[in-house]
């Protein structure tokens, strides 16, 4: 299984998680989670459990809502499996069936199946990475709900419903746009966090833009591949009507375009997997880092408010002890968030750099490989066509 956007997170043998299998039933994808562990907190040392996308979201949300983890970057939730693209294409294929030759239709169908598979691989990967981020983190791996997610041998649907009622999506329902204002409004004394704030705010908009542009680029590659497919089909039609040597010549040309299509498709899907997916993932991860800054900013605001309250209490001479206690707690919370936040943001940068390096190298190597294959295909074909 090709792990793309993150480095190998399974380097700690005490808890190894992967998703070897997944089943696609209509709208629902059922992931088979495979766990191997030496930790005593688990009942078995190796086991598997089926989970749905919604279960992942439940796990993510419970972690987000956990106060204890406020100082950590929460691994971004995997996006919902999106089969819209292939589904739309399948629809178009059905409609256009009458205007295509049998070969063209079969080819497009094959291509469609490949696309379906690509979406499938992507969604499995991104769900897997989510779990591996949790399992490789010293705090998250001990999370109770994480353990339930991995071990509970029944359907999690009931738990999910309960959780919704308990938390009511409290944190998520807050107006997210407010956090940018809050973060930038905070008077920062700590140089580290000041830099991080400036960096993250700018970087997040840039990476979102880069993701969108990469997506468009990939789509164009796919369109070109489609065109090669149609050209190949049209050439075959003309060949069918011709005689002898020219017919063979045309058929050979049609074959070349068909092979070009396959290569172009591969270029497109590799670019998507290595570049676009990388950018997509880190767009989400940057958001998670920003959320951390937000929580810290909130804690700072609370601390500042607690100071004001204490001053007021001292003036009035009422509830001073309470106010002092409150202030101490706020400060403690803020310091804790700052300390763990610093650690998290530093390791986040390291993780990001490693992931970019790995993916850029792999993408480049694949581009070179595909270009070399294209070239040898084209040169070989030119030779054959010239000799005819």
């Amino acid at each position, binding site marked *: 299984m090709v792990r793309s956007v993150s480095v190998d997170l399974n380097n700690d043998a005490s808890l190894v998680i992967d998703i070897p299998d997944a089943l696609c039933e209509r709208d629902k994808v059922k992931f088979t989670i495979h766990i191997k562990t030496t930790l005593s907190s688990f009942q078995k040392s190796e086991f598997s459990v089926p989970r749905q996308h919604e279960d992942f979201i439940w796990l993510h949300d419970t972690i987000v809502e956990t106060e204890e983890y406020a100082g950590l970057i929460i691994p971004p939730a995997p996006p919902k499996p999106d089969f819209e693209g292939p589904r739309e294409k399948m629809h178009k294929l059905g409609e256009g069936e009458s205007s295509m030759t049998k070969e063209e239709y079969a080819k497009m169908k094959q291509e469609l199946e490949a696309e379906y598979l690509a979406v499938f691989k992507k969604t499995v990967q991104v769900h897997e990475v989510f779990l591996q981020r949790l399992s490789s983190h010293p705090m998250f791996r001990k999370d109770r709900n994480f353990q339930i997610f991995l071990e509970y041998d029944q359907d999690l649907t009931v738990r999910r419903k309960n959780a919704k009622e308990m938390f009511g999506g409290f944190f998520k329902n807050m107006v997210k746009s407010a956090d940018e204002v809050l973060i930038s409004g905070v008077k920062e004394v700590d140089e580290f966090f000041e830099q991080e704030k400036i960096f993250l705010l700018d970087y997040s908009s840039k990476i979102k833009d*880069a993701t969108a542009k990469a997506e468009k680029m990939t789509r164009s590659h796919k369109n070109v591949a*489609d065109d090669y497919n*149609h050209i190949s089909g049209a050439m075959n039609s003309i060949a069918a*009507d011709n005689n002898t040597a020219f017919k063979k010549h045309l058929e050979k040309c049609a074959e070349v375009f068909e092979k070009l299509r396959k290569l172009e498709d591969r270029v497109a899907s590799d670019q998507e997997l290595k570049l676009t997916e990388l950018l997509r993932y880190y767009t989400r991860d940057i958001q998670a880092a920003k959320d951390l800054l937000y929580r810290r900013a909130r804690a700072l605001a609370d601390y500042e408010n607690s100071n004001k309250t204490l001053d007021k209490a001292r003036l009035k001479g009422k509830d001073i002890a309470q106010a002092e206690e409150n202030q101490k707690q706020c400060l403690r919370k803020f310091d804790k968030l700052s300390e763990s936040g610093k650690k998290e943001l530093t390791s986040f940068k390291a993780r*990001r750099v490693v992931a970019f390096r790995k993916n850029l190298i792999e993408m480049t190597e694949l581009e070179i490989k595909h270009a070399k294959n294209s*070239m040898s295909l084209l040169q070989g074909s030119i030779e054959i066509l010239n000799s005819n």
Partner: protein
Amino acid sequence: MHECKCKRSLAGFSSVLFVVLSLVKVFLSQSPEAACLSAEDISPSSNGPRDDDPDDLFAGVDGGSVSGQSRPQSGRVRPLAGPDEEENRDTFDIQISVSDPEKVGDGMNAYMVYKVTTKTSLSIFSRDEVCVKRRFSDFLGLYSKLASKYMHMGYIVPPAPEKSIVGMTKVKVGKEDLSSVEFVEKRRSALERYLLRTVKHPALLKDPDVLQFLESSELPRAVSTQALSGAGILRMVNKAADAVNKMTIKMNESDAWFEEKQQQFENLDVQLRKLHASVESLVCHRKELSVNTASFAKSAAMLGNSEDHTALSRALSQLAEVEEKIDQLHQDQSYADFYLISELLGDYVRLITAVKGVFDQRMKAWAKWQDAQVMLQRKREAEAKLQYANKPDKLQQATDEIREWEGKVQQGERDFEQISKNIRREVGRFEKDRVKDFRVVIIKYLESLVHTQQQLIKYWEAFLPEAKAIA
């Protein structure tokens, strides 16, 4: 900054185009065989085609010599000629280029003037090298003359390029943007291909109107073409043929060859249009790819600037540079897609229409012949009736008319046979040219793709160590 980008695109565009278009011209004007068309093959004294012209001009040339006796042209389409057959006569020593588009006048009355340069050693031309200035309507005028002279005889006259109101208006209005530059370039190239195709036709090359077009400094303004483009004329001709077809009974096709060929051309028409449409789509999507790659490049550069890890920031900036080079590569490839394949296919779609027109002309000739036969019959019946009336004057007139119509029937039959013969020959030539054109073009196109891939390898191999250097 916007202007700079425009200029860069224009400069890059014209430099790539120069390479691509010189490729197009080369293949159109030459054929691989070395043998030259000897001076005997072109008789300067003929003024337009002679129906009774022996097949000398088109007869298979064995071993390079022109046979004096006429070789009866077999009705069968020859199988693809080997290198020593008719191909030999194809190489002619003539180069035509259309260049230097210049805008004359202002506003809605403005027009473009093109320089037409002919370089040749053929004796029918008065000089080795001639330069004349022509405008678009001149080309249409030439086509209109040639079509009216030769089409009814079954010659496939290459159609002139299409008029374009939208395209020309932009040019007239004076928009100096990339799209009007592209439009002028597209037209210039189309005009060049049109002339090259026209002179490739052995009979048209000798035509005095063609010679006048290429050589004389002043050309009477072709006024009637204001309404007619190449396609316009064909449409008119075909409409007339349709009307004829509707009136007559279905032609008794005694020659299976014609029926077969007509069907083949109907099919080819449909298939070529489909292929052309797919290639046009490729051109469009490749342009989009170029634009989107450029856009990504900018975005990656911004991301690199924003990145606070130094080595990664540098790598991202370099990725942006690579993508920028690649976007230029895609743009160049789209020009190759367009000028090598798409425009050629467009030319052939129009040529097929001309071929179909020629078949219709044959049906018209047949109908005329049949009509003459019907008329003759009527005249004979009228004479028979007059035998019993006592009107010697009228009887004489009737006998005269019978003789007249007998002549017309004979002429009709001769014309029909001649046009059938001509079409067989023309179709044979067309199919040979078509195969040759396609073979040459597809190789050139694949070579353009090879070039793109080579560049891609170069760019990515240069980037790889940069990516590995991220630490």
